[in-house]
């Protein structure tokens, strides 16, 4: 930062004219009235010297290649610049009118979860050398990123039980769409994709959006009982079906008979794309164990903040035979010219910057920093920590499910066993009222399902992570079964 404290002196000369000008600077922008140049170095003297070296009279002259009639003739209609202190105040005032899981007890899930984030992750991801670098086009000065990505890929093969992982995609939803594209490209059967209705509705929407112009039929298999009816699904798998898409545990938190679904798909010659919850692999079979060919996941729950939907982490892994169809960046281990082991981007002939319209995907930027967070998270947890986390989620969510089901007002919507979230039906059908009441009581009680599943308009999807204490679970039951107060209730004290 430079210039006078309020920036006046420096800002006024930024449309500098190389030699002292007799007429005012040739610009339609009036001299700024407040500080607005916090990240520049060039002083008026620098600007003068640079213009002389260029052979230009003014900065305006440098824009002469923009045709006059295409230029923007007025100042942008944006709020005036604010200095750091003032702006922080503005932002904090907005943030104060928004509440997150730091101040409310969170039972929301549906693909994004309030798991604990160890401090080490912020320390590592806050290293400038990680977060202010870019795609490792120059491996000699990017070994840190490359090795971390290689370690991420290695960890992903271990939690998926599959052979190969890439170094990340955008999020679970786009990873689902890329997984389906991979299956379509990897097979001569490109006419149909069969998707279980118990797959995350926004993942299904993303798949439909990606396939909109590719002439592929998407068949959605209904799951009124909360899980796939394997016979019904098998009947939809035609000889032109490239893949079956399932989610385990599914969007409702229920466990599918994944072995049987994979068996049915493979018997009919289709591939299986499985969405999974990385945390669940602490106790549940991995996609590769039950027979999936391509596994995709949302990796937010591996140490990334909720951040209203992103940035998150798309995970994708596959069997060896499909590796050349994999989208996105992949890091490989090799040796350098002196024979030293090292890491580099590899199999790049799949990618857009080489193959252009024939690339496996258009992915360029990915979520490297969030893959790093997941790598640190799993390094900290280790096998026992992951198992303990998964088991706490299971025990606590099942405790809460049973407690709610024991009340007069609620029943479980489905019979199938669940992992860390479950669907309850409000016999009074007043879901919106309950949500508003919960908010007043300091709780985000669950995700309403009516917009996606009209039959479940009286239902809530409730998620329980290892962070929830028994006191919070009991408080939720009490809150949901209390008679709605006529007057505004006093919020419960924050329990954390």
């Amino acid at each position, binding site marked *: 930062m430079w210039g006078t404290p309020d920036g006046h002196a420096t800002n006024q000369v930024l449309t500098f004219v190389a030699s002292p000008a007799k007429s005012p600077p040739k610009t339609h*922008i*009036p001299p*700024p009235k407040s500080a*607005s140049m916090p*990240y520049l170095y060039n002083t008026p003297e620098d600007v003068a010297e640079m213009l002389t070296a260029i052979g230009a009279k003014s900065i305006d002259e440098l824009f002469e*290649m*923009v*045709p006059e009639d*295409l230029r*923007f003739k007025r*100042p*942008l209609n944006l*709020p005036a*610049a604010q200095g750091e202190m003032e*702006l922080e105040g503005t932002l904090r005032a907005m943030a104060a009118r928004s509440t*997150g899981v730091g101040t409310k007890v*969170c039972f929301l899930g549906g693909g*994004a979860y309030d798991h604990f984030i*160890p401090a*080490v992750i912020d320390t590592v991801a806050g290293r*400038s*050398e990680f*977060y*202010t670098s870019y795609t490792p086009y120059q491996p000699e*000065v*990017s070994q*840190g990123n490359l*090795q*971390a990505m290689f370690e991420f*890929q290695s960890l992903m093969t271990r939690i998926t039980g599959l052979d*190969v*992982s890439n170094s*990340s995609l955008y999020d679970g939803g786009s990873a689902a769409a890329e997984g389906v*594209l991979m299956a379509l490209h990897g097979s001569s059967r490109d006419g149909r994709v069969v998707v279980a209705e118990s797959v995350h509705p*926004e993942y299904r929407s*993303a798949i439909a959006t990606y396939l909109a*112009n*590719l002439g592929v039929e998407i068949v959605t298999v209904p799951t009124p009982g909360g899980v796939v009816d394997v016979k019904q699904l098998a009947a939809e798998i035609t000889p032109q079906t490239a893949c079956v898409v399932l989610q385990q545990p599914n969007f409702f938190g229920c466990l599918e*008979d994944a072995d049987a679904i994979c068996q049915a798909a493979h018997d009919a010659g289709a591939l299986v794309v499985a969405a999974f919850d990385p945390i669940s*692999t602490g106790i549940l*079979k991995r996609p590769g164990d039950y027979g999936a060919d391509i596994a995709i996941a949302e990796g937010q729950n591996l140490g990334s*903040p909720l*951040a*209203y939907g*992103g*940035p998150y982490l798309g995970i994708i892994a596959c069997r060896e035979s499909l590796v050349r169809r994999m989208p996105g960046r992949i890091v490989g*281990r090799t*040796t*350098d010219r002196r024979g030293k082991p*090292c890491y580099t981007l*590899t199999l790049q002939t799949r990618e857009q910057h080489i*193959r252009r319209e024939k690339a496996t995907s258009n992915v360029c*930027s990915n979520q490297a*920093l969030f893959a790093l967070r997941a790598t*640190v998270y799993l390094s*900290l947890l280790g096998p026992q*920590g992951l198992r303990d986390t998964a088991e706490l989620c299971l025990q*606590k969510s099942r405790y809460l499910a049973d407690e709610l089901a024991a009340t007069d007002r609620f029943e479980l919507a489905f019979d199938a066993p669940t*992992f860390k979230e479950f669907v309850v039906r409000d016999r009074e059908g007043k879901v919106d009222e309950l949500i508003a009441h919960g908010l007043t009581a300091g709780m985000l009680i669950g995700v309403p399902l009516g917009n996606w599943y009209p039959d479940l308009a009286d239902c809530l999807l409730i998620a329980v992570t290892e962070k929830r204490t*028994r006191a919070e679970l009991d408080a939720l039951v009490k809150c949901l079964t209390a008679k709605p107060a006529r007057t505004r209730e006093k919020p419960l004290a924050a329990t954390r």
Partner: protein
Amino acid sequence: MRNTRDTKSLFELSKPGRRATLLPKCDVPARPLGSLLPASVLADLPPQLPELSEPAVVRHFVNLSTQNMSVDTHFYPLGSCTMKHNPKRNERAAAMPGFGDVHPYAPEAAIQGLLELLYDMQQYLSEISGLPACSLHPAAGAHGELAALLVAAAYFRDRGEKRTKVLAPDSAHGTNPASAAMAGFDTVTVKTLKTGAVDLDDFRAKLDDNIAVFMITNPNTVGIFEPSMKIIADEVHARGGLIYLDGANMNAILGVARPGDFGADMQHYNPHKTFSGPHGGGGPGAGPICVTEALAPYLPMPIVRKSSSGQFSLDFSMPKSIGHLRAFFGNTGVLVRAYTYIRAHGPDGLRRVSEHAVLNANYLLSKIKHFLPVPQGERCMHEFVASGADLKATKGVSAMDLAKRLLDYGFHAPTVYFPLTVKEAIMIEPTESESKETLDAFAEVLFRITEEDPELLHEAPHSTPISRPNEVQAAREPVLSWKS
């Protein structure tokens, strides 16, 4: 100080019995797993993750970080990537409670402040682009390209038109034809001239009534403002086609020219470039798109709306929308950083950003053109592309050799071998947040390197932890995960 002992693989550092995390005791009555879940879904063992202590994890990753160059530590003139300063106030903003800790399905009533920020962001991006409708949903620039092309496809389908052709210049980013293919279009490449401008004869030869979209990067990838922009837009529109503006190079024209004013119907932004979100070692980015009123009904969902009473809500009732391209709202954390950047600059400040980005690029061009030809000419916008073709012919030194040797001198390399239209391309984008001293030093070092012994350059870099990975071996016998 580099420590290589702790940068051994995580799997080599692992020792059974070590752990860095202690979970609390289960405070609800714990039941046997077998009574809660069927045996068929249970794993025999948890995944084989490495077992490490907390200090081991910290030391490992912190030491790995020291093997990277980054914007905070080095000049990083990677062309087309806009590696500008990443303001720390942006990071603080994104982490604020109320922004950073909000669940994507939080009730709208609980998050009015955040929705207001996102609503404002839609407005700001529309104002800067001159295109009235905005979606913040896409996760990256290429994702925004795909979103916009799907919007175009839906628009034509709605009008009962079957158009299959996308035109893109040969200098376009690889993502352009790749996105077009994913959206179901056939890409036809239009030639560019030596100056970097679109070859109008070739353009007209390939333009017909089958045109859906012309994808143009402007300023283009050689760093010039397309001189025929108006002609191209008018002729594409006359055929009923649409103009897509690849917004990768918006850093050159903030407040100077608006895509909506110079003929674009759609554009994406790269907030992680133009609006200073960090690049994260490869991501995350975000890829918001802006479009004309005619295309607005087809935008991906959801859009933030403001009611007459000042309430903010998400609009999911858009029957013509192309739908989701991902789960949840968007890459909100990146958008909050970009919002902070825009608010730190205001209208005048954003224009100054572009002025100084262009000044810095032209200054560097004026120094470098004396020893490395710049085929596009004497002036540029925010970046320029020098050619190492002469050097290759006379001394056998390649653009890659120059790039690698720059690393020895403590500079990140420019983008090399892109665009494909320039031989031995060296694409340099200094950005506005660099000093004259840095630019002088970079130009001087680059000149010195062109005078060095070619043998020294072929084997460069010499001072980095590793040098020239065997990429052929890496691709031929891929080792893509740790096998213990």
